[in-house]
């Protein structure tokens, strides 16, 4: 593994991830035979339903016991096991490039970890960035062997995409109309608002996870004095004199921002998770995401 890949997925983490799998609360139709239940009825060991026999049905699925008792032919239906679509959508705007480690790197690590779980469980994994053009389509990855390609894709995502969240997610939805799990890795720092953007995902009937990544500098700003704060994305300037009351007000604003996002997501059946870039990825995946039900 290259150094970058090492950064994204450490061997220790891989060992932990081996035991995990992605979970969705919804049941989607897959594309191919996989390891998950599908809406589709098919050939698995798990019984699903009965239905009346119509000529042409496969005789192997007729329930002969019922025919003997009722003198009617019923067909036994089984659940089909299919694969799962897992999308990791990474916000790669300039604001994600802040923090130690940077929020983008953190997002990539998380995406890599989740994608790895997906790959080893025979799910279809797609890593995309918000700024990815509508026309550019990346292939879905499947199988353990694709870990390399996934990591390569992740490496290619660089900070500095100047696409707002709404447009980016809209493009994402247009490119990928299939149902599945989508994990949105973003800091939600979009001045035009994140609500409209997230609604697009809802419209896709996807199982949406919003991982809200904030750096320590944003959660607990370590600045003081008379400052001219410059927005790295649009060069916007905020002149502030940092003092006790302003700090208090900033925290209030941050809390209401985080709380607002959480409430927005929860009400719409999405899972919201606030991630501090100081929390190790392993802990986040094996602990927080597990309690949120994304992995098992």
């Amino acid at each position, binding site marked *: 593994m290259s150094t970058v890949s090492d950064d994204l997925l450490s061997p220790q983490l891989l060992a932990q991830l081996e035991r995990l799998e992605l979970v969705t609360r919804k049941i989607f139709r897959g594309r191919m035979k996989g390891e998950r239940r599908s809406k589709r009825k098919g050939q698995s060991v798990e019984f699903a339903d009965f239905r009346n026999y119509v000529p042409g049905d496969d005789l192997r699925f007729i329930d002969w016991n019922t025919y003997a008792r009722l003198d009617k032919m019923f067909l036994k239906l089984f659940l089909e096991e299919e694969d799962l679509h897992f999308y990791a959508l990474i916000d790669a705007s300039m604001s994600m490039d802040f923090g130690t480690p940077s929020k983008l790197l953190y997002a990539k690590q998380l995406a890599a970890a989740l994608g790895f779980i997906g790959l080893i469980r025979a799910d279809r994994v797609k890593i995309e960035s918000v700024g990815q053009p509508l026309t550019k389509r990346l292939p879905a990855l499947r199988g353990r062997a694709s870990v390399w390609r996934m990591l390569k894709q992740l490496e290619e995502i660089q900070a500095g995409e100047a696409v707002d969240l709404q447009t980016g997610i809209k493009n994402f939805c247009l490119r990928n109309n299939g149902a599945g799990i989508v994990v949105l890795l973003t800091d939600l*720092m979009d001045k035009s608002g994140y609500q409209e953007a997230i609604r697009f995902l809802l419209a896709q009937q996807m199982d949406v996870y919003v991982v809200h990544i904030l750096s320590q500098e944003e959660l607990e700003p370590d600045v003081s004095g008379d400052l001219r*704060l410059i927005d790295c994305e649009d060069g916007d300037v905020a002149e502030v004199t940092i003092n*006790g009351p302003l700090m208090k007000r900033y925290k209030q604003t941050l809390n209401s921002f985080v709380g607002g996002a959480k409430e927005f997501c929860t009400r719409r059946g999405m899972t919201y998770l606030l991630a501090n870039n100081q929390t190790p990825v392993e802990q986040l995946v094996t602990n927080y995401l597990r309690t949120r039900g994304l992995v098992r």
Partner: protein
Amino acid sequence: MFSSLLTWWQWLIVGAIPLGVLALYFLKLKRTPVEVPSTYLWHKSIEDLHVNSIWQRLRNNILLWLQLLLLLLAIIALLNPTFQGSKLIGSRFIFVVDNSASMQSTDVIVDGERISRLESAKGQVRALIESMPEGAVAMLISFADGAQVMQPFTDNPNDLLRAVDGIQPTDKPTSLIEALRVSSGLSNPTRTGSEEQDRIKASVMPAKLYVLSDGKFDVVDFALGALEPEYRKIGNDDARNISITAFSVDENINDSSKVEAFASVDNFGPQDETVFAELYLGNTLVDNVRAPIPAGRTYGISFPLAIDIDSGVLELRIRPDTNADDLRVDDTAWVVVDNPHRARILAIMETRNVALELALGTTRFDELVTLDTVNLEEEPNYLQSETYRLQALSGAYDLIIYDRCRPPDRDPPDGSTEEQQTDMPLCNTMFIGTAPKLTSWGWTPGAEWPPPVYIAPPTVIDSDRSHPIMDSVALGNFLIAEAFGMTPPSGGRMLIDSDIDSESGSSLLTIGPRESFEDLILSFNLIETAGGINTDWMNKQSFPLFILNTVTYLGSPRDTLSLASVNPGEPVELKIDTVESDEVVVVTPGGEEHTIKRTPQSTFPFIRTDEIGVYDMRAEGRSVAKFAVNLFNPKESNIPPNDNLEFIYEPLPATEVTETVKQEWWKWLAGLALVVLLVEWFVYNRRVSL
């Protein structure tokens, strides 16, 4: 009430400071640029600070309010608010401050600290100036023996306050009259002389006159007119003072070979005191004595001087054992010991005059006078001799007595045959039975001189007893056979008037000035040259007394060992025979040097005797004379202040001023401002702390 410490333009600057502080709150700070992921949350946080109205920005800004409060306190402090003090009523004030010696008494207690009366008076004047109404004018005069206008009429209190600071204590005695004259100049304009048009020349400008003094001066004979006086008594009635009121050195009365120093020490305080007196010669302690002095009494101290003092300076220092003395300036006295000055007298007699010789030959004369006599019977050409000429014209004698003779006439100019005036000697003269031929005395060329004798026995009508020559001389009861009458020249005086009715006048004894000298003319012979007497005055007691007075006055001998003490501020005129230079330098006790020039009368006048102490006159690199200035003034030393200002018409009682010094608030305000500053600093720090 307020009395601003600043002028109007300074106030403008002070007034601009609060505006400046407000402006600072709107000024953009120089802020450090910091790049952040997003200003999204910050904008949201500072949203409510960015409201449109600038006043909203200042809303609840406690720092601003504290700063404005601080400035307000500072400004009020600058206004110098005071309590205890009412506005003066009027528009014209004259402040007259006493800075005489007695005002140096430190008997005024303010805040537990003893300050001098002058400081107290200055404090009161400052308070009065500060309570002057807007636009009022005031004038400041200080006075001791004379008056000095410290500040003419002005409406600027700052000028007046500066002038108050300029008043310095002096060692001089007190006289209010000149200060009153200066004060009344504008208030009481003089009137026109003529009775028909008795009109006031200028309009009367009434003024309030504040006299700040201890009232230690003579009754004031002065019509105040439009001046409205108010007497502020300065000083404490319980003031204590021990003072030297006299100090001299003289021969012992009983034994003229011994010398004694005498001093009288007064206790002007309310308590009995024991005084310790020390006598120094130069810096050497010569003697000391301890003496009890009851309250209000005088004590005479004499120090027999064992050592032989020809010249030098004796210094007497006294101090009460309790140290209870509020005036120090009169606790030290100096006396300059010098050899006595004997008058040199030349008596030129036509024939031997036993009466005159007897009168000039008493023991008292031996002490005072060095007498030379010339009998023209024995030396007929003496008056024409070169010896006489040199002595008369060099000023070798203090007095020349011409008995029935007179100096020769002046040499006539070449070719002139006209009769000339008498060639007078350069000293005082006395003529007996004759008169010098001087036009000032009424002589004209060709006239009979002395004037013709009035045959009828003249009678003495009157004598001028106020003149020193006639002091204690009781005339009358003596006869004169023949006499001529004289008229005093311009500036002269008739000392004995008679009933002689002649053209030349009626005076029998006349004194008149001649340049810097004086001539005394007795217009009758004592004895006749031919023998016999012209008067029996010589048999009377008054005759030797008259001769003694004449010699004392015209010969000016000095018999005491010590030079007379000079009062502060009094002019001194010293005759120094031992100096050839026309300039001497006087070194004051304070070390100042003043160069003075010799007058035509061969004296050195000196007027700047303001300080007490010993003045040294130096010439040609050595000390040629010394004189002492002492405050021998019981009026100044008797320091308990007078309750009334003694005007001749009615006494002016003192106005009670309970609060001598106004309580000023500015210190408290400044302290409060400091507290506000600390609170502001605390609040600021609390706000910037994270």
